[in-house]
């Protein structure tokens, strides 16, 4: 089943010709409208008219999250603000978010790609889609929502949280498709069990899970506990939001990336050179139809590999494998992006706190937990329990306020956090993904 059969099954030569045409048109737009790109292309000695083949893409400079931060908030927008109809943002490393803007056409394309993704996952018109991705600045909620409406399904915009109510609504409304983070799905299953609700008796048929890394083992566990088919979806706000790539229910082997709108490349994160098909490396994406904020060779920092082999589902679009990590130190905790450097800058902002800290990430009852260990020196120490507890609460609150992630601050004895000559070990990730 396809949502847009013509484009999803476009023969590769036609698909690549379309990519080249759209790439050149996008480059012309950013060259004309975005000073950052005009400068970076001029510096690289290449203008849009010099792009004669898709291979020429390699001659273009990369765009990084840092470039987006440097142009905060709207510096990389290629369309005038009068044409921007939506603004989303994701957390950034300095407390400033990464901002993206969408034109009407961008929203339309996003909705279509999400609708395609739903169909690829086995959903269809008539389904009742229980959308438990967060609504707000985060792209998950609204991205899935618009796609579900575009498909013509009934969407329940429940957003995240209030698990008991989620379970009641799934039961009473007869939800058939669930969209949320994989860890939240397992958490819901546990809650349901505690409430005496058998998830397997619900009408749920398909679950579309993303926004955080997960594994095949977790897929088995979810399918077993929830009694549904679990599908992996990939996306990031910088590129669009959810629906950049998704597995097909026919194969469940690799995520088709919608190549008529995005050109994927896999590079060696150290050298910046492309790696061979099937080899692991960092995913780099060029958006070729976006108007609001088109990005040239955006470094996602996600590690994957790509295959162009034909898929049994009939789609001609390349497949990327499940994300296996990051080429930077970003952590994804309950779907929230967290860089250790963000936590560091919050900690050093608290008087007396030293920059020796350790982040311990774990998964307890299927929910990610973050423990922030801080050494108690003489400046922080008090003979009164309440003073130390207040310090721990303050650390927890500032991290929650700045990063939106709940953590527990643990006070430890001085010199117990490992010092290192070179790169200090700041993170222990005990999650078994």
């Amino acid at each position: 089943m396809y949502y847009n059969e013509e484009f999803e099954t476009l023969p590769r030569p036609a698909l690549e010709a379309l990519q080249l045409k759209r790439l050149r048109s996008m480059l012309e737009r950013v060259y004309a409208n975005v000073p950052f790109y005009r400068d970076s292309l001029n510096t690289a000695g290449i203008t849009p008219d010099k792009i004669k083949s898709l291979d020429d893409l390699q001659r273009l400079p990369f765009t990084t999250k840092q470039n987006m931060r440097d142009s905060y908030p709207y510096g990389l927008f290629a369309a005038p603000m009068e044409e921007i109809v939506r603004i989303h943002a994701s957390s950034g490393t300095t407390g400033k978010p990464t901002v993206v803007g969408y034109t009407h056409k961008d929203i339309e394309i996003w909705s279509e790609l999400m609708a395609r993704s739903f169909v690829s996952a086995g959903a269809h018109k008539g389904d009742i889609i229980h959308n438990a991705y967060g609504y707000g600045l985060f792209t998950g909620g609204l991205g899935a929502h618009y796609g579900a409406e575009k498909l013509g399904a009934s969407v329940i915009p429940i957003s995240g949280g209030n698990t008991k109510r989620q379970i009641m609504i799934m039961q009473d409304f007869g939800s058939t498709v669930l969209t949320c983070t994989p860890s939240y799905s397992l958490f819901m299953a546990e809650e349901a069990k505690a409430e005496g609700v058998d998830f397997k008796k619900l009408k749920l048929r398909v679950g579309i899970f993303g926004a955080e890394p997960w594994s095949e083992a977790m897929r088995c566990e979810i399918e077993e506990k929830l009694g549904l088919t679990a599908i992996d979806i990939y996306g990031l706000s910088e590129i669009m939001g959810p629906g950049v790539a998704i597995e097909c229910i026919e194969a469940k082997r690799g995520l088709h990336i919608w190549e008529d709108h995005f050109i994927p490349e896999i590079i060696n994160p150290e050298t910046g050179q492309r790696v061979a098909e099937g080899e692991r490396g960092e995913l780099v994406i060029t958006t070729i139809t976006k108007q609001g904020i088109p990005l040239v060779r955006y470094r996602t920092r996600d590690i994957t590999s790509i295959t162009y082999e034909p898929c049994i589902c009939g789609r001609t679009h390349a497949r990327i494998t499940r994300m296996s990590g990051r080429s930077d130190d970003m952590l994804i905790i309950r779907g929230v992006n967290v860089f250790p450097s963000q936590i560091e800058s919050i900690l050093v902002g608290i008087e007396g706190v030293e920059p020796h800290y350790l982040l311990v990430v774990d998964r307890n009852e299927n929910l990610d937990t973050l423990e922030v260990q801080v050494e108690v020196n003489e400046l922080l120490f008090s003979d009164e329990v309440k003073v130390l507890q207040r310090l721990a609460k303050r650390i927890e609150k500032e991290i929650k306020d700045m990063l939106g992630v709940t953590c527990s601050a643990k006070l430890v004895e001085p010199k117990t956090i490992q010092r290192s000559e070179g790169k200090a070990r700041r993170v222990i990730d005990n999650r078994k993904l």
Partner: protein
Amino acid sequence: MKVEQISIFIENKSGRLAEITRILGDSGINIRALSLADTTDFGILRLIVNDVETAKTVLKEKGFTVSKTEVVALEVPDRPGGLSSLLQTLDDNQINVEYMYAFVERCGGNAVIIFRFDETDKAIGTLKDSGFTILEGERLYTL
């Protein structure tokens, strides 16, 4: 009028108390009184010792976070109601107790209560005026 107490931060893991008492013992320091405040993650060990400065130095050398606090030691008769009248006086004068711990004197038969007040000087003045016996630090260290 004030007594020096040392406080030590300890993580909630096995062997920490044993480690601290071993360090003090090796340095010939005698513990006069102690109290341990504990939470799920950490504890604060508060000690009255016979040699505050040495105790602080040796523990810091071993990497512990140590602080010195001024507390007040009061003698109360070791009989029913002995502590009650003292606490009533504090309450009447709106003096807050942050924490307290007690031990019984080896000779003399009185109980000694160590108090940490939020306003130490005000507390001392009030208690003296009300006729309570405040112990000098020197006496306590060598008790």
